[in-house]
């Protein structure tokens, strides 16, 4: 940077401010009055908010719909469920319809059966009477808005959510702790010591930064097998812990810590380990926080590697479980949607509480 950042607060009279759309292109900020630029900014941000959130919101709204409501076209915005009624002599509750009879009157009847385009309905108040046969187009379902948890209850029965959640949490937490520890140690070694082969090691780490794990699944599996970690959460936690990104990010950050600090600590008789954890780690905290966020995101969302390593259902993570369910031959949206919501819920809640910390953390540390 050319100059140190001035601590002086930056303010000028309104008249001098650039106006219009062009002002948007500079970092100069609007004054107390609402300018055209402000309008465009808010317009952009509101449209952006819609684009970012609407797909997720639609998923959440849809997840409450009944199985039949989900295949309806055009879809309704809110989840509608069909009104049912218990009728004596029938095991299952019957669905209610408003039926237009031949004489033009409309009557509320319960459907007993439907064959092709014809439906047979009875009067729930008088189930003994002769059933009415009508074309299905002459009946209108009686529906009501209902944020029913029925889908969720059924999905949880089919989808051992708590087991998967537990595995995901164990994997994410353990892997993040290990990642932070070993990556920061390595970064410390690479940034604060002179030794033979240092640059070579750094280059090797950097060169693997670009190779995606998805192309080395088979050889990696062979290695895991030799170690004996197939069908073991260790096989998911450990291999990904030595992240090249993490070492790179932390090393770059630690390079900015002045070496004199370490020297004076050494003169005071501090051991190398204590220099690492009492000086360097606290100073690298912003970068560590960013790596922690990345690590949590990577591990929580990882699915290809766990899919290969874990084949026992009690070891599945949420992503593997969700992928397993959506990959099934029978696409059952009324289960997939609630499961998807359940899968994105934990990380959304964590984000909601920590969002300021996370976004400012990434924004201030960046990737230098």
């Amino acid at each position, binding site marked *: 940077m050319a100059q140190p950042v001035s601590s002086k607060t930056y303010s000028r009279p309104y008249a001098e401010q650039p106006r219009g759309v062009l002002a948007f292109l500079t970092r100069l900020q609007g004054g107390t009055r609402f300018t055209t630029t402000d309008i465009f900014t808010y317009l952009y941000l509101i449209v952006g908010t819609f684009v970012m959130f609407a797909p997720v919101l639609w998923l959440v709204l849809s997840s409450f719909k009944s199985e039949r409501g989900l295949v309806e076209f055009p879809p309704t915005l809110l989840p509608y469920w069909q009104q049912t009624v218990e009728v004596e002599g029938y095991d299952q509750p019957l669905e209610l319809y408003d039926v237009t009879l031949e004489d033009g009157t409309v009557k509320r009847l319960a459907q007993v059966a439907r064959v092709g385009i014809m439906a047979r309905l009875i009067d729930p108040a008088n189930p003994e009477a002769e059933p009415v046969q009508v074309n299905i187009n002459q009946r209108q379902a009686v529906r009501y808005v209902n944020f029913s948890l029925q889908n969720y209850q059924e999905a949880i029965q089919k989808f051992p959510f708590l087991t998967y959640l537990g595995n995901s949490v164990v994997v994410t937490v353990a892997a993040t702790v290990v990642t932070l520890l070993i990556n920061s140690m390595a970064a410390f070694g690479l940034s604060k010591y002179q030794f033979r082969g240092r640059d070579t090691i750094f280059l090797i780490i950097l060169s693997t930064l670009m190779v995606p794990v998805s192309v080395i699944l088979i050889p990696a*599996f062979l290695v895991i097998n030799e170690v004996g970690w197939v069908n073991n959460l260790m096989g998911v936690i450990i291999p990904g812990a030595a992240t090249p990104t993490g070492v790179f990010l932390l090393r770059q950050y630690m390079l900015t810590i002045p070496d004199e600090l370490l020297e004076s600590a050494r003169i005071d008789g501090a051991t190398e380990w204590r220099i690492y954890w009492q000086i360097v780690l606290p100073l690298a905290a912003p970068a560590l926080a960013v790596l922690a966020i990345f690590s949590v995101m990577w591990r929580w969302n990882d699915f290809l590697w766990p899919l290969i390593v874990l084949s026992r*259902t009690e070891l599945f993570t949420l992503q593997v479980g969700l992928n397993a*369910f959506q990959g099934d031959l029978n696409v059952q949206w009324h289960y997939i949607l609630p499961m998807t919501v359940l899968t994105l819920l934990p990380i959304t809640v964590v984000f909601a509480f920590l969002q300021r910390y996370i976004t400012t953390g990434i924004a201030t540390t960046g990737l230098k």
Partner: protein
Amino acid sequence: MKSRGLFFLLIALIVLSANLAAAQDAVELRIAWYDDGNEGLVLQDLLDRYMADNPNVKVVIDTIPYPDLDKTLQPQVETGNAPDMARVTDVSRYKGYYLDMTPYMGDPEGWAATWPEAIINWMRSDASDTGLYGFMTQATVTGPFINRTLFEQAGVDIPAGDSTWEEWVAAAQQVAEAVSSPDNVVYAVAIDRSGHRVWGPALSMGAKFFERDADGKPIMDDKGNVIFTADSPGFRAAAQMIVDWHTNGLTPAEVWVSAGGQYASGRDLFTNGQLVLFMSGSWQVGALASTIGDLFDWEAIPNPSGEGGSTGMPGGAALMAFKDTDHPEEVTKLMEWLSSAEVHREFVERALFLTYHKTLTEQGVDYQTDLPSAKKSLDVFLAEIPKLSDDAWVLQTARNSFALNIGIRERLTQAITGELTLDEAIERIQQDVDEQRASS
């Protein structure tokens, strides 16, 4: 100090979770399984009963979606991490890794005699192999379903049993045109996105996928791979037919076009009443019975005829034992129990499956459904089994036919989307098959 305690707690947590997988008390047997319909639930029910009678054994089913099954199974099997048992359709794939149950069986000859020889041989490596490795949880045969209610609503006569594909599709098209409305498009026909599903119609239209030697045996290379040829007038006709369905809008693009590199089925559309003719197979009956129920009348029809006769593809899902198991005796005992006439009868009757079990095919099975549609379909499929051509059996059991299967699926899709011409697609299928033989 408090934080040190926390640290040890964390270590303990990691160690604990690591050992979770290793923890065992009773003999634990694992079955890798996939589901088409309700058969997983039926199996669980049977196993619960078995475990109640055999408290020393715990059986766990790991359900994996069918498209991921072989993908995860292959590395596990080859590295010695196979489950004790697995439900597989590509039986040839894991030959050499199966457990020979003969030494642990009470009556191996008697057991073998309850299954057709072709099935027992399919699981064996070569003619000298006398091992017994597994049994068929279900027999399958491919063939089309129709939505009878739509035919009735359209007032179109259902073609006779020996009609050709052309006649069937023409009728289905008439139906689709009559019952379609702008807000509910009904398609005439769909075929599962699988080379295996195309083989039946292709063979019926006279396709020749391989040559035979003087003894009538398929000609193989020195590695035991059948030498397949893609280009024959029969296959060309079948391929052209499927491409034309797409260009003429007779079939929904969802099945072949949008599925990308994997298997896909038209079942959802058929279930929603948006499909007149649905080419799939007998394993769908259970699922159709539970999702359609009596919403409309549906039934299987005999495979349409052509120059090559009228054949579907045989097949089945085998439950195979793997030799990695630490408990061969318990595995064998469970397999014997599951394949016994009594238990297997309950399984197929509740799951609505065809079976190869000789006792059951002789006595007949009484399917547990009130649906005339399901009963009729199963009867139709049962009648298809004796009609299966020899070529169909060769295709089903050859160890390298998977390459032909995938080749047809992927290349035909490219022909449908216009990336390749049909000629190029057939050339590419040939190349795919040859490449697999060369690299195996």
